[in-house]
C-alpha cells in the first residue's frame, strides 16, 4: 500500500502545482539555458540560494562567491490560478528576486525551470490517466454489460467490433486517429483529444472482460429476482450486474492507469500530443532525446523519473488491491 501513499502525495502535488512551482511553466529566461540545478544551502536557521552566472563558454556557469539570497517561503511571485480558478500569487518558496533564480532541477534549453514544468506537467500527465480510465471503463462496462446480458446477435456484433479495435496495433491507431484531428488545436483541445484517443482504444479490452463476467452474473438468482419484480433490463445491468464486477474493475483500473499516462507520454514524445510551451512529462522528455544533452544535462531526465515512480506506484497499488480483493488466494 506504499504505492497508494506515494500516489496520494503525487496527486496532491499535481493539485497544488501552481503553488509549489516557483515559476510558470512558460517562464523563459534565455540567459540561463541549460542551467544546472541550484541547491539552497543551510546557513544558521535559513536556507540561502547561491548565484551562478554564465561563464565564458556556452552553457557554462560559475558560482559567484558570497552572492547569496535567503530562500523565502510563501513568497509573492507570478500570477497563477489555484485549482484552475482561484487567482493567487503566493508560491511555496522562492527568492523573490527575478535576477537571483532558484532552479532546484535546473533549466532546459530555453532557460525554463524544469521543476516548475514538471509540476505543471504532472497536472496534465496524472489527470489524463484518471480521466481516461473513468471514460473508457465506464464505456467498456456499459457496453460489456449490454453485450453479456443480452447475448445473441447483440453480443456478436459488439464483440467483433471490440476485436477489430484490439487487433489494430495501438500505436498506429493512435497516430492515425491523431491525424483525423486538425494539426493546430488549443492545448485544452489537444488534452481532450488525447483522452478521447486513449479511451477509444482502451474500452474494448474492458468490455470483453465485463461481458464475460456478465455472462455468469446474469444467471445468478438475484437477477431473476430483480426481473420478477419487474425491473427493466438496463437497470438490472447497471444496478445489479455491474456493481458485482467492481472488485475486479477497481483493480484492473488501477493497473491500467499507467498505460494511459504512458500513452500521453508516447503521443507527446512523438510531437502529436501536448504542444510547447505547455508542459507535459512526455513533451519534456522529447528534449532529452539527444545523447549529447543527456550526457551534459542529465537533469532533463527528471520527467522520466517522475513517470517511473508514478507507474511503479500504480502497479504496487494495483497489486495490493488485488490481494485485498481476492480472498481466494492467500
Amino acid at each position: 500500500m506504499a504505492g497508494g501513499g506515494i500516489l496520494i502525495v503525487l496527486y496532491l502535488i499535481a493539485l497544488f502545482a501552481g503553488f509549489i512551482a516557483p515559476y510558470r511553466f512558460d517562464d523563459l529566461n534565455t540567459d540561463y539555458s541549460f542551467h544546472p540545478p541550484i541547491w539552497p544551502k543551510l546557513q544558521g536557521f535559513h536556507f540561502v540560494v547561491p548565484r551562478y552566472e554564465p561563464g565564458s563558454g556556452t552553457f557554462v556557469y560559475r558560482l559567484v562567491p558570497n552572492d547569496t539570497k535567503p530562500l523565502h517561503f510563501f513568497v509573492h511571485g507570478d500570477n497563477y490560478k489555484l485549482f484552475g480558478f482561484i487567482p493567487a500569487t503566493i508560491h511555496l518558496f522562492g527568492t523573490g528576486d527575478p535576477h537571483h533564480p532558484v532552479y532546484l532541477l535546473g533549466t532546459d534549453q530555453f532557460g525554463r525551470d524544469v521543476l516548475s514544468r514538471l509540476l505543471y506537467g504532472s497536472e496534465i500527465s496524472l489527470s489524463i490517466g484518471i480521466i481516461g480510465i473513468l471514460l473508457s471503463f465506464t464505456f467498456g462496462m456499459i457496453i460489456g454489460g449490454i453485450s453479456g446480458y443480452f447475448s445473441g446477435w447483440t453480443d456478436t456484433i459488439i464483440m467483433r467490433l471490440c476485436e477489430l479495435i484490439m487487433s489494430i496495433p495501438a500505436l498506429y491507431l493512435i497516430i492515425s486517429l491523431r491525424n483525423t484531428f486538425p494539426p493546430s488545436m488549443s492545448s485544452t483541445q489537444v488534452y481532450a483529444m488525447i483522452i478521447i484517443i486513449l479511451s477509444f482504444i482502451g474500452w474494448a479490452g474492458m468490455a470483453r472482460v465485463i461481458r464475460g463476467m456478465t455472462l455468469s452474473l446474469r444467471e445468478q438468482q438475484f437477477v431473476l429476482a430483480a426481473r420478477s419484480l419487474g425491473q427493466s433490463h438496463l437497470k438490472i445491468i447497471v444496478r445489479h450486474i455491474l456493481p458485482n464486477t467492481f472488485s475486479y474493475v477497481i483493480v484492473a483500473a488501477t493497473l491500467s492507469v499507467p498505460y494511459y499516462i504512458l500513452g500521453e507520454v508516447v503521443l507527446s514524445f512523438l510531437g502529436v500530443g501536448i504542444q510547447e510551451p505547455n508542459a507535459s512529462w512526455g513533451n519534456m522528455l522529447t528534449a532529452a532525446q539527444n545523447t549529447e544533452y543527456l550526457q551534459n544535462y542529465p537533469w532533463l531526465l527528471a520527467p522520466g523519473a517522475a513517470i517511473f515512480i508514478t507507474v511503479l506506484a500504480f502497479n504496487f497499488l494495483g497489486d495490493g488491491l488485488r490481494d485485498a480483493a481476492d480472498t481466494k488466494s492467500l
Partner: protein
Amino acid sequence: MNLLEIKNLKMDFGKNAGALRAIDDVSFTIGAGETVCLVGESGCGKTVTALSIGKLVPTPPAHYVGGEILLNGQDVLQMSNDQLRNIRGGVVSYVFQEPGASLNPVFRVGNQIRESLKLHRPEKANNEEIIRLLKLVGIPAPESRIRNYPFELSGGMQQRVMIAMALASEPKLLVADEPTTALDVTIQAQILELLSELKQRLGMAILLITHNLGIVGDMADRVAVMYAGQIAELAPAQELLRRPLHPYTKALMASVPKLRGDADRLSAIPGNVPRIGNFPPGCRFAPRCVIARPECSKEIPRLIEVEAGRWVRCPFWQAS
C-alpha cells in the same frame, strides 16, 4: 373469475427437431386468496410452470407453443414488455429457493426492498414503509437491519427479506418456489407459518412449489401433482392426502417415511423420472407404474374429472 387460469399450456425448450417439451398441456386455476401447491420430483416442470406466470423463462430457448396463462383475465403470453413489467411484482411476486442467492450481495437489504417499492408503489419508497415491511415479516430490530448487507443475515432472515421484497409491491399472487428447501427444519416451519399468516392478513393467493408432502397438508387448499411436464392429479389437499387416486400420487405417498410401523426400508418408486425429450410413449408413468397395462403405452391419457374437483390422468385409477 379466477385470479390465475392456466389453460393447456405447452412450452418447448429449443425449436423444430431439437425441441424438448418441458410443459405439456398443463392446466390449473388459482382463485383469489387460495393456496395451491405444485408437487413433483425434480425436473418435472414445476419451476418453469411457475416462472411462466410472469413470463420469466427466457425466450429463446423457451417457446410457448400453445395454451394461455390468464392473469386477471389477461393472457400473459400475449403481453408487451411494459405490461409484463407491470404485472411482475404488481400482480405476481416471487420468492425463490436460495434466499442467499436471490439477494444482491452488494446492496443493503433496505435498498433492495426500496427498489421493489420504487417500481410499484413509488409514493411509499421511504424508510418507514421498509421498516413496516420488515416488521411484517417478523424481523427483529428492523431499524438497524435496513443497513445490513445480505451476508450479515442468517438464511431464515434472508428469506424473510425476500418475502418482504415480494410483498412490498402488494401482489395478488405470491409464487413461492421451494421457499424452505435451503433452510433447516425449524426455520422452515417459521417461514411457512409466516406465509400462511401473511396470506390470512393480506388476502393474497399463494402458489407454493414443493416436493415436501408434509408442507402440502399444512398449507394447501388444493394440490397439483406434476410428473414429466404434465399434471398427474389435481385435487383438494386434504382429500388428496387422505385418498390419492393416481398411481403416481399413491407411490409418492407411500415413500413418505412413517413415524409408526416397523418397515426396515423406505419404499421407493422403482426406476427414474424419464429425461425430458426421452419420454416413453403413452402414459409417461407407465414404466414405473404397478398397475400398468399394455394399453397404457399406446396413447397419452387425458386428465379426467373423476369426482367434483378431482382430476386424474389415469383411466385405471380405480384399479388398485
